[in-house]
């Protein structure tokens, strides 16, 4: 018998601005798997993620994370909440934001609740954890830089350092690669893959990059207010399913050949 799922969603419904944005969705995330949540704009992907994390109230259904029922107002025991990491699309870093990369990553190490763990840079263990997290994400030389000075690619890696600075079980990404160019997206996914294996993360990622989803995810959830289909990438991203999900304007493209050893003409 396998281990219980990290996330179990049953018949989840969410009202947003008076409309049913997510309608009766059920799925499970098995331990240490990578699941993609795909669907057209306005399909309710971010709403589902927000409800799953307890950031939005549910109008129906239930969510269990690491065996604990999510409360009506998003309550989870602190021991479970500290096992969850989340990567948003953007941070509000308008203008010069006085926060260094090390300080920010340190807040990822600290537990929720009122405390003075940050005072003077924190304990030796905290400082070491920050340094290791920065090293592991290729941000070793960015510690003293301001968060607002970083490029998009650097910021995403720092966000991963924020997640990896403390052991966690579940990582949720909401279009985390949005705004990155092709090489930065590739680099980000390589890093994510590596960290996922090392940390044993269970990953749920909202993505529009179907090629990446096909290559690296174990399970795909196709959402358009309701769960239209789910399963392996080959099953869920078949041309027929994509046609059903996105309509006739989407032409599925499959990048099949291998670049290794390729020569320029």
């Amino acid at each position, binding site marked *: 018998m396998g281990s219980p799922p990290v996330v179990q969603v049953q018949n989840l419904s969410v009202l947003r601005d008076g409309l049913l944005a997510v309608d009766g969705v059920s799925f499970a995330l098995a331990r240490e798997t990578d699941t993609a949540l795909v669907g057209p704009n306005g399909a309710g992907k971010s709403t589902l993620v*927000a409800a799953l*994390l*307890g*950031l939005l109230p549910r109008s129906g259904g239930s969510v269990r994370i690491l065996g604990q029922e999510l409360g009506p107002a*998003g309550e989870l025991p*602190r021991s479970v*909440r*500290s096992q*969850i*990491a*989340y990567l*948003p699309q*953007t*941070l*509000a*870093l*308008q*203008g*010069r*934001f*006085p*926060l*260094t990369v090390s*300080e*920010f990553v340190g*807040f*990822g190490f*600290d*537990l*929720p*609740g*009122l*405390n*003075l*763990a*940050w*005072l003077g840079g924190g304990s030796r263990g905290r400082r070491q954890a920050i340094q290791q997290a920065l090293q592991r994400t290729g941000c070793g*030389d960015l510690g*003293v830089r*301001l968060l*607002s*000075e*970083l*490029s*998009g*690619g*650097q*910021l995403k890696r720092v966000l991963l350092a924020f997640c990896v600075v403390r052991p966690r079980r579940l990582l*949720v990404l*909401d279009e985390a690669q949005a*705004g*990155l*160019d092709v*090489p*930065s997206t590739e*680099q980000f996914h390589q890093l994510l893959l590596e960290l996922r294996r090392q940390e044993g993360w269970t990953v749920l990622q909202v993505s529009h990059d179907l090629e990446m989803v096909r290559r690296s995810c174990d399970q795909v959830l196709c959402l358009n207010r309701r769960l239209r289909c789910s399963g392996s990438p080959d099953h869920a991203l078949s041309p027929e399913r994509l046609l059903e999900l996105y309509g006739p304007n989407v032409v599925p493209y499959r990048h099949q050949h291998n670049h290794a050893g390729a020569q320029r003409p």
Partner: protein
Amino acid sequence: MTDLTAIRSVLAEPFMQRALLGGLLTGGLGGLLGSFAVLRQLSFFSDALGHSALLGISLGILLGINPTLVLIPFAVLFALLVNQLVSRSGLPADALLNIVYSTSLAFAVVALSLVETYRGGIQQLLFGDILGISWQDLAVIAVLLVAAIAYLALSLRAQVLLTLNSDLAGAFGVGASRHHLAFIVLLAVVVAVSIKAVGVLLISAFVVIPACAGRLLSRRFSVYSLVSAGLGGGCALLGLLGSGLTNLPSGPCVVIVQFAGFLLALMVSQMSRRPTATAEPAEHRIPGAGPAAPGSR
């Protein structure tokens, strides 16, 4: 020597000692709260609160209740109502705040015009009367400063994450709406308590100017909040001293010194700004974003 004697005689006056202490505490409190308010784009909110305070004072006078007693509950209630309006109306916050503060100002002036005894005192309300600050007022401000330092220090992680992204904060265990409300209430109380010293028109300067100067001078968040508070308190001291020596109005003198401090901070930050130390490899850049430069995002 004459100047030193003049300073000594100014400092010897008990009302001036109270005013200087009041300026130090109020300025420090404004700078501390401002360091968070500015980053959360709540500086206009503090301005609107300041203008609404005039309405609270007017209502107190009209009803025959001590305005100071009315002001704090009025400001808190007003802040919570405006916060609800901003989150529920779907209108841009700055437009809504503009409507609220100009309307409350209009009602306040009409209310004051109905009270014969207060016609001459409107300038004190607008620009403050820090020289009239009492020991009781000082005690309230000191308690508030200690409470603000304790709350902001203990919840620094929550405050920073909330400023960066409320979903990020919530996912990492921060009670986002609880902390947002607590901060709004704290800001309202600080504005209400500082009105007597600073005045309705100048209160937003106490919140915004030291924080902006601090932002130019600091890289670490904790240092930034301390620098902002220090600049707020220091500028208030210098401004009041200048006011005492020149017999110019105290509130405006403080704001002028704050502005001078801001210009100085701007110059220092421009001079110390170096080109980005580590040039970013081309493969990390977002197309069209150009080189990563301070404040470029």
